[in-house]
């Protein structure tokens, strides 16, 4: 690890001042579970590292006017232990107990997971399906970006120099929403997703009134598959329709070959898992 100046502001405003004008030589550090490995292997050589860990005010989980608000420095363990998340954001909760292992969960933050913008980021997939928004602050002010416009490419986001992610927030899903999440990894813990799927469905009888489908590790960024969603919306859902929807989902992804799986397998699994998640949440008998 090369030498750098280590700054530990205790408030958001102090942090914003600390980073002001320093980009691109400055690196924000939250839990450090992504940053430390890149400092260690030399891919990252910042002059300043600004540790956000001291900003206690950015660690919270609360419900306000129909929205769940999560401070950027909230750890994965905090989410896992939160009865509120378990009850009203079960899709996100599902993603936290298969996230890495206890040691990493104790440090990893939700803000860091989103800002790192890995295609396999495990909180991003359910948060996308939940229609989450990201709050960003700079010395100039505050803005809110919908999560599906937050990712700009492989490990890139729309965060501008001088900005810090302060919060991620999503509307409390309406009662009776069907939610299901699945992460396919090569082992049961400490696994980077091969494919992950989050499905949210609002039903009125057999009619799907609204849906959200998000996928991870199958494109440069985690993504919503809007075409596939459109196939279900406003329709009576039967197995035939689910099949169409799953096929459409598989068509809209751009997976790659890597050490964990081939692009072909990932694409196939998109179809299989989207199909399965929809059937499971609706209690449909999965034909194959």
């Amino acid at each position: 690890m090369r030498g750098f100046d280590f700054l530990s502001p205790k408030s958001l405003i102090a942090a914003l001042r600390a980073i002001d004008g320093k980009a691109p030589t400055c690196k924000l550090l939250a839990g450090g579970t992504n940053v430390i490995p890149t400092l260690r292997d030399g891919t990252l050589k910042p002059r300043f590292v600004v540790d956000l860990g001291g900003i206690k005010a950015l660690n919270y989980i609360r419900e306000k006017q129909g929205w769940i608000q999560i401070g950027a420095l909230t750890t994965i363990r905090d989410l896992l232990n939160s009865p509120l998340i378990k009850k009203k954001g079960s899709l996100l909760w599902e993603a936290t107990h298969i996230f890495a292992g206890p040691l990493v969960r104790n440090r990893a933050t939700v803000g860091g997971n989103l800002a790192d913008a890995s295609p396999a980021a495990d909180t991003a997939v359910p948060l996308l399906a939940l229609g989450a928004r990201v709050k960003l602050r700079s010395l100039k002010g505050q803005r809110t970006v919908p999560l599906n416009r937050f990712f700009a490419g492989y490990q890139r986001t729309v965060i501008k120099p001088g900005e810090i992610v302060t919060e991620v927030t999503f509307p409390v899903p309406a009662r009776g929403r069907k939610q299901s999440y699945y992460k396919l990894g090569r082992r049961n813990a400490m696994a980077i997703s091969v494919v992950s799927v989050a499905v949210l469905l609002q039903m009125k009888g057999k009619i799907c009134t609204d849906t959200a489908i998000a996928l991870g590790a199958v494109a440069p960024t985690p993504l919503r598959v809007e075409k596939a969603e459109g196939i279900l919306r406003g329709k009576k859902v039967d197995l035939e329709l689910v099949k169409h929807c799953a096929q459409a989902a598989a068509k809209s992804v751009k997976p790659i070959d890597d050490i964990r799986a081939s692009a072909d397998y990932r694409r196939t699994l998109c179809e299989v898992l989207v199909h399965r998640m929809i059937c499971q949440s609706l209690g449909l008998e999965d034909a194959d």
Partner: protein
Amino acid sequence: MPFDKTTATLLGKSIPQPDSLEKAVGETLFSDDIRLPGMLWGLALRSPFANARIRRLDVSKAKALPGVRAVLTARDIPGVNRRGNMPGNRDDQPVLVEDRTRAVGDPIALVAADSSETAKEAISAITVDYEQLAPVEDPLVSLEPDAPLVDEEGNVIGDLGYTRGDTEKGFSMASAIVEETYRTQFAEHAYLEPEAGVAWTDPGDVLHIRCGTQWVENFRHIARILGVSHNHVRIESPLVGGGFGGKIFMTIEPLLALLAKATGRPVRMALTREESILSSTKRHPYILRYKMGADADGRLTALLADLVGDVGAYSDASPVIAWYSIGFLGGHYRCKNVQVHSRFVLTNNPSGTAMRGVGSAQITFALEGTMDSLAEKLGMDPFEFRKRNHLSKGESLSTGQPLKNAVFFSETWEAADKALDRALLRNSEEIPKLSPKVLRARGHASNMTGYGRRHGHLSQAQVSVQFDGSAVVSVGVADIGSGQRLGCQQVAAEVLGLPMDKVTLSTSDSQLNPIAGMTAGSRTFLNAAGPVQRAAEPIAKALKEAAASLLEARIDDIILADGKAFVKGSPSVNVPHAQLVPAAAAAGTSLTQLGTLKIEEDLYPGEETAHNAGWLDYTFGGMAVEVAVDPQTGQVMLLGLGISHDVGTAVNPQIVVGQCEGGVVQGMGLALTEDCCVKRGKAEAHDFSTYLIPTSLDIPSIEVAILESGEGEGPFGARGIGEPPHNITPAAIASAVSRAIGVRVTSLPITPEMVLTALRTGEWPH
């Protein structure tokens, strides 16, 4: 005087390892924890290329940096620039590369500096001008006559085999024949403790190396590298954080030695996980072709095995492993017509070495798979088919070696199957939650693993009793975590009739302890605790003689237990050891005894062509596993696993269970997830996010059934159990998956993607 098991007090007791708690809470000092005054930090510059000529190497800038105390290249080696490692290999591996790299990770230069930062800076200040050459990646390509030479002496380092009977005739008598080719992967030992250590020179000019190793005898190779006599090098191994065969031969020891010698100061080195995986030895990938035939009664008529092993860049331990493989290829089945052939071939891949079961995991996977296929083709139950062919006690292996001890084939197979039932019962909450669409099946395997190499070497240990009756055991063997020290302690305490805390140990020091050889090959209880037993016996005899005269009884009636001697049946009238030891000394008995074990190289009739392949004895076992395969994703879930081995005598049942469970978990990795993914000679998977060892959440419900025939060559009739549970696991898992999907699994690891492809195409993808 044969040992009387009926009066034993410690035999069969699950005494916990004294260092377990200390390790669990992080108090044990491992090699990486040692700091010495004035210590320097050592670092190696390693080749990023598998095959390259070094046109120019310039270390002048690195040398000029302040705080840099030494920069060494091949030219600075005072002795012989060869690692040596295993007697009988080609001695083809330089310590530091001279002009050509043959593998990724080959060390080219060494640096010692005041801080690790300065050492890193110095490494990056070294310039190397490489001329990259195409690496030989495939052993089959390397075998071709016009293949580029990896080594000037030729690419084939071992071409071995033997023939019994007439296989052609045998196949002509067969009513069913199966021919299959199996492939296995590069597997990393993945010891939790990466290579680390310190070296320094003492005022008597003895170079000390304190570094986790499985073999303190490596001091001889280091002396040759340094150009000094053997007595000037001393290896002391701290407790080792796992070895699995990867720390038998030297890792960083010669690098430490060179830097300490050159600087005259203590030097420390510690590899990162990435450097460790990129530069260390691996389990050999095997390409195994089996052709087997059986008659309508299900009796084997012919067995043909052809093996190509990928040696990697240097011969290292491969010549010996080639021999072991020959010994296992013929299998533990009765067959008159056998032809076995193996070739071990150099490539520019990571070097293969010993890994838990030295070649037997790969062979068991292929042999048992072929046996299953043949049973299927005959329309026979796999157990029934094997029962007709399995060798029994007294019969000979196809190498010619007779099996002189119990062969519990049916016993272990059935016990494993029952153990699986219990394992499934324990999992009875999860199983009903499975989708009805999963493909469930049970698979089995049987295995034979050697222990105790017939190499004619001596293993020795020393036992001393003190005047108060307590004892010290001294044995030059390393403890790699599986209870080697405890085994020696328990045996000494049992023979001397002492409580455990009255026996202390001095181990793992190449100059202070009698040498007992490597901690490897399921040999250590036999080869280390065995000499301990032999050393303790004459002392026990002297104590009994003293007691017999004091108690006015016959020596045969004297029992030594819990630090006292008494006449069998009347423990209340006793004499403490504290009184017996001085009496024995006065009678002229030496209170320090050396115990020696020699395993003879004797050949059995007809064994000449395969004699090196044999072991003193073998351990037999069975495994049963039930899997659920998701037909749409290809994921394999282990629902439960039962394992049973005949361990002869379970001297410490908890240690046996630990070896079984640990072996299974490591075997699961080999079966399902672990693969170095070597491309252009480089392990693409070189950290623990890509090299996937099982986590605690992946471990299924495991039940262990220990069987004790009482027939083994170790102390009290014990057999080796360090490797057998590991090498049977991939075979059993593959058997279950094959049944579940209806396609024979012929390569490892069994990835979900391959399973899915097999389900869709009806063939296993290679």
